[in-house]
Structures are given as structure tokens and as C-alpha cells.
């Protein structure tokens, strides 16, 4: 009797840890061990802490992107949005000398507004997300460059050092930016797995029409996913500013949308929608950043890490494809 209940419960709820996540965690352990053996400096706080700080913005934006992709959408405007949020916040820090909470609120609010634009256009314009966000990516970049004016933003004060790499950005050796990312990931994991609202996202990604007939307010939920992504991108932009030096140049955010999508996909979220986990995304972002860090520490060309990212995507998604095929034929 109890086994029957267990099976049913198993079918309704996805497993706490998917195979992909276990494999990813294993790969991470092996990679870190290999790097530790080849370059002893890798497993020191001085090397791991910057790695975690650098992972945070990608993983944080990845939480939103995971939810978007679970509903069957995609957001390629993240890079442009990061640019707008970070340049506005940086200008506010320089010009108005705003405090830390105000800067974070401003960045998050701007990110939310940009996400709302995407959400409204996609949910109510009934156009495929990739097209709309390609368009808004251009619009956001225009906005960002206009705010930049010409040249860079210089002399950014250390207000955001709380999120940075310095000693002020850590508690008990753990960087705040990474800690916040982990907390938000955990909250999103719980919300997606254990609440009706969270399950609705999966339902929409599985079959939007069926979800609508089952009483899910599809348009509103879809709008929400892009809003969440925008808000998280706003916070991630603060991390990006804190990571850098006191100068912000116009390349900020460039190519970040693809890095975020890569982390999500390596984490085992299906691009077709209906399946995915934020925990995998965090591990995926960590893996990508570990490779980038490892490649530089081994003294190889830093651009070589992109090749590994490509290979990881192929292997991660390919393994998933083969597993699905094996399950179906069984």
C-alpha cells in the first residue's frame, strides 16, 4: 500500500535531486580535484572566493531564466538589461552618491521595469519570446548606450563593496553575493517544487493550452516569469558593478545572455519547457566559471574556456536526450 502511495507521490512531484544534478555535482568534484592536483593554488580561499563571486550574477540571472525556460519561453535580452541596470546604478552611485539599499532598490526596480516590458509584449502580444526579446535586446542596448553617453563611467565609489571580492564582501569567508544567490536559488527551488504557483510554470511549459483549460491564468503567469527575471537581473547587475574596478565600460553585459542560457541548459533544464531545476542552473554556472578559472590558472588562453562551454552543453544535453530516448523505448 505504502509503495503505491510512494509511486504516485513520485510521479506527481519530481525527484528532489535529478540525475543531471548528481552527475553535474560529480563532474564539479572531479574537475576541482584535477585542478587542485595540477595547480595547488586552485584550492585556496584566494582562488575559490573570486570564483564564487564571479558565479553569482550568472547563477542569479539563471534562476529567472530557468523559470522562463520552464514555461517554454526564453529571454535573450538579459545582456542588454544588465547593461541598462548597471550603468544607471553606477551613474547614481557616482552622481547622487546614493547609499547601498537605494542603489540595490534602484537597480532592481529598473530591472523589473525592463522585465515587465518583455512580459507584457510576450504574454499579451502572443508573439514567440525569442523574437520579442531579440527586439528588446536591441532596445535595451540602445538605452544603455544612451545613458553611457560617450565613454565610460569612472570613479564609482565602493558603496557596493558588500557584494564585491574584497574583505568587506565576505562573512565567515563566504562571499555575500554567492550567499544571496544560494538563498534565492533555494527559495526558488522550494517555490517551484512545493507550491501550486510553482507547479503552474511546469504545466504551462508542458502544454499551455491544457494548463489554460485546467484553470491556470497562463498570460499572467508568463508575464510573471519575465518580471522575476528582470528583478533578479537588477540584483545581478549590482553584483556586476561590485565585481569590477571603479570603472564601468560599454561592454558590460555583452554576451551575458548566452552565458546565462548555457548555465541553465547545462543544469538540465529542457529548452522545450516543462522540465528543469534552479539547483542545476546554480551547478551549471559554477561549472562554467570553474572551467574559466581553471583555464586561466593552467596558463592556457582564456578564450579556450568557451570551447569547453560548448562541449559541456553538447554533453549535458546529449546525455539527457539519450536518457529520454532509452526511457521511451523501455
Amino acid at each position, binding site marked *: 500500500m505504502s509503495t503505491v502511495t510512494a509511486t504516485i507521490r513520485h510521479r506527481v512531484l519530481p525527484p528532489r535531486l535529478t540525475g543531471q544534478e548528481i552527475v553535474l555535482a560529480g563532474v564539479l568534484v572531479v574537475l576541482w580535484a584535477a585542478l587542485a592536483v595540477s595547480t595547488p593554488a586552485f584550492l585556496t580561499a584566494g582562488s575559490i572566493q573570486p570564483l564564487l563571486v564571479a558565479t553569482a550574477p550568472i547563477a542569479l540571472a539563471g534562476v529567472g531564466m530557468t523559470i522562463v525556460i520552464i514555461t517554454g519561453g*526564453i529571454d535573450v535580452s538579459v545582456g542588454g538589461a544588465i547593461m541598462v541596470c548597471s550603468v544607471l546604478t553606477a551613474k547614481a552611485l557616482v552622481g547622487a552618491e546614493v547609499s547601498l539599499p537605494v542603489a540595490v532598490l534602484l537597480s532592481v526596480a529598473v530591472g523589473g521595469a525592463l522585465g515587465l516590458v518583455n512580459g507584457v*509584449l510576450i504574454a499579451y*502580444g*502572443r*508573439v*514567440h519570446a*525569442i*523574437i*520579442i526579446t*531579440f*527586439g*528588446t*535586446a*536591441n*532596445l535595451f*542596448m*540602445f538605452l544603455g*548606450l*544612451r545613458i553611457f553617453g*560617450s565613454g565610460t563611467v569612472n570613479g564609482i565609489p565602493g558603496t557596493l563593496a558588500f557584494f564585491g571580492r574584497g574583505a568587506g564582501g565576505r562573512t565567515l569567508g563566504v562571499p555575500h553575493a554567492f550567499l544571496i544567490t544560494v538563498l534565492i536559488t533555494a527559495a526558488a527551488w522550494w517555490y517551484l517544487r512545493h507550491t501550486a504557483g510553482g507547479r503552474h510554470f511546469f504545466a504551462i511549459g508542458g502544454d499551455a493550452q491544457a494548463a489554460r483549460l485546467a484553470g491556470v491564468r497562463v498570460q499572467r503567469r508568463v508575464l510573471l516569469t519575465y518580471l522575476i527575471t528582470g528583478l533578479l537581473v537588477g540584483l545581478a547587475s549590482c553584483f556586476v558593478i561590485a565585481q569590477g574596478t571603479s570603472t564601468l565600460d560599454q561592454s558590460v553585459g*555583452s554576451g551575458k545572455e*548566452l552565458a546565462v*542560457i*548555457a548555465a541553465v*541548459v547545462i543544469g538540465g533544464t529542457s*529548452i*522545450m519547457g516543462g522540465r528543469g531545476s534552479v539547483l542545476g542552473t546554480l551547478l551549471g554556472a559554477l561549472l562554467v566559471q570553474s572551467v574559466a578559472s581553471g583555464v586561466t590558472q593552467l596558463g592556457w*588562453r582564456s*578564450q*579556450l*574556456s*568557451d*570551447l569547453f*562551454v*560548448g*562541449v559541456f*552543453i*553538447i554533453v549535458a*544535453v*546529449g546525455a539527457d*536526450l539519450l536518457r529520454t*530516448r532509452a526511457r521511451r523505448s523501455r
Partner: protein
Amino acid sequence: MTAVAAQKEGTGARILRVLLTQRIALLAVLIVAVVVTFFIQDAGGYLTASYDFDYMSASLISAVPLAMLGLAELLVILSGRGGIDLSVGAIVSLAGMVFGFAYGEWGWPLWAAIILTAGFGALCGAVNGFLVSYIGFPALIATLATYYAFKSIAIVINNQEPISTAPIQKLFSISKSVELPLFGQYVPDIPLGIFTFLLPTVVAVWLLLARTAYGRRLYAIGTNDVAARWSGLPVRDTRFKAYVYAGLLAGLVAVVTVGQFASARPDAGVSGNGMALPAITIAVLGGVAITGGIGRVAGVVLATLLIVWLNAGILLAFIGNEGSQYQLLALGAVLVFAALLNGLTNRRYGGTS
């Protein structure tokens, strides 16, 4: 039913319906509107240089890579099942380096170097096609992965250095303008790349899509994958070839780009915004349905002309780098507008052609 409705509707409603359902008509009207707007601005003296037929003709040089990659995206998106190619820009970079080695350093003759580059592009496309069509990767994922891989190899292969030896620098003549024979003195000079690369490509892709069995198969598998399989079409083979052709076109664009820069740059196709995003934008603007099976060569060509002439005008209307910023605005606004229009048309008339 539709016949009755068509008889009842007035002239205004009919024009609206044609504009909304015939993307080519809409693009033609938009092109005329853009050109007339800038001519008026020019006459009023608001532009920093004169926007005339000579300028429009000279600006066509930037249409060559844009339209060719737009056609590459057309083929891939037509093949359906979420077909898209994010890696075309990275292929341009990598194939450009191959061309740089062959023509600039190994001293191959030009024709052999071009064939090698196109073939190499096709090989890169074959990797995409194999992953998407035979293994079953979603196209977005497979081409995202190869985008990273090709981009990385292109940069690492020559230690981040561009190749700009003497033969490569002489190639700049590709982007020169020439006077047409016979009636040349009556019309503006036209960039040579239009005749050597763009026109042959446009004709070839049009023939492929409209006049060969392969073209009909491509539309068939894009419209309905399952139905095509049950009718005995070689679905996998057809889709695979679409990616190979896209890679081939990207390889040719690599040659054009090397000529334009007079140097084989390792980041030619991926620097800044990259080349893939504008190409996809052009395809969508040209009326290619992202779901597959719908799209025409003429739409892509007209969309390219619209964007190129709009961008050329914007460059004259603003000073300094403001112009390139407003080009982003124009591209984004036009794309969102076109996408929303597609949605509206689908709801009102049940489909666009």
C-alpha cells in the same frame, strides 16, 4: 465564405488586408517611406551629408553579408522544429581565419581559397545539422554550443592575431564600387560584392527553394514534420542539408568580410552584437515564421534593403556614435513592430504569407 467577404470589403479594408497579409507589399511600402523621409530631410538640410542615390548605392555594401546570412537563417528556420542558427557569426570568424591562412599565408590561388572556405563553412554547418537532425538536439542548444566552440577555436587558432598579409590587403577591391557597362553612366556605381557574391547567392537560394524538389521538401518538413515523415520524405536528410547550406553561406560571407576589413579578424563575426542576431532579425522581419515552413527569398532581400537604407540614413541624421546607437533602436523597434504585426495578422486573417 471568404469570396463573399472579399466582395463586400471596401478599398481601404482591402489595402489594409493586403499590407498585413502580404509581407512583401508591406516591406515595399516601408522602404519607399524610409527613402522618401530621408530625401525630404536631405532637401531640408537636416543631414550631415547628402542622402542621394549614390549614397544609397554605396551603402549596399553592408547589405551583402547581412542578406546572405539572412538567407542562411531563412533556410534553417524554414526547416522547422524550432530551427535557428546562432552560430553563423562564429562560423564567419572561423572560416575567415581559414581563408586568411589559405590565401594570405599558404599562397593558394583565390578560387581555391574561396572553395576551401565555403567547404569549411559547410563542414561547420554539417556539425550543426548532424546534432540537430540526426541526434535530435534542439537547434537553439546545438548552435549555442557550436557558437561557443567555433568562436573559441577562431580566436585561439592564431593566438588572437588577425591575418593581414599583402594578398589579403589587396582583396579590399571586393568592396569597391564599379560602373555598370552599357548604361553605367546613367545609374550610380554599385559595390562589386553585390555582383560577385550577393546576386548569385540570392538567385541560387531562390532556385533551390522555388524550383527544386529539395525546396518543396524543405517547406514540407517545416510545415509538418510528422506528415512529411509519413509521406516518405527523407526528413532528417533534408533538415541536415539546410544547416549545411547555411554553413556554406556563412563561409562565403567570411570571404566578403575578410575583403571588407582587408584582414582576417578572429572576432569578425562575433564582436559586439555579433552577426547572428541581425541575421535572425532580418529573416523574421522578412516574414519568415519562426515555427517553420513559411518564408520567401524576396522577403529577406527587401527586409535587408529596408534595414540597410534606414541605417544609412540614421548615420547621416545623427552626429558621431549616436548614429550607431540609434541604429540599435531602429532595429529593435522594427523587429518588435513586425512581430506584433504578425501576431495581429494571424488573429485577424488567420495567417500571413
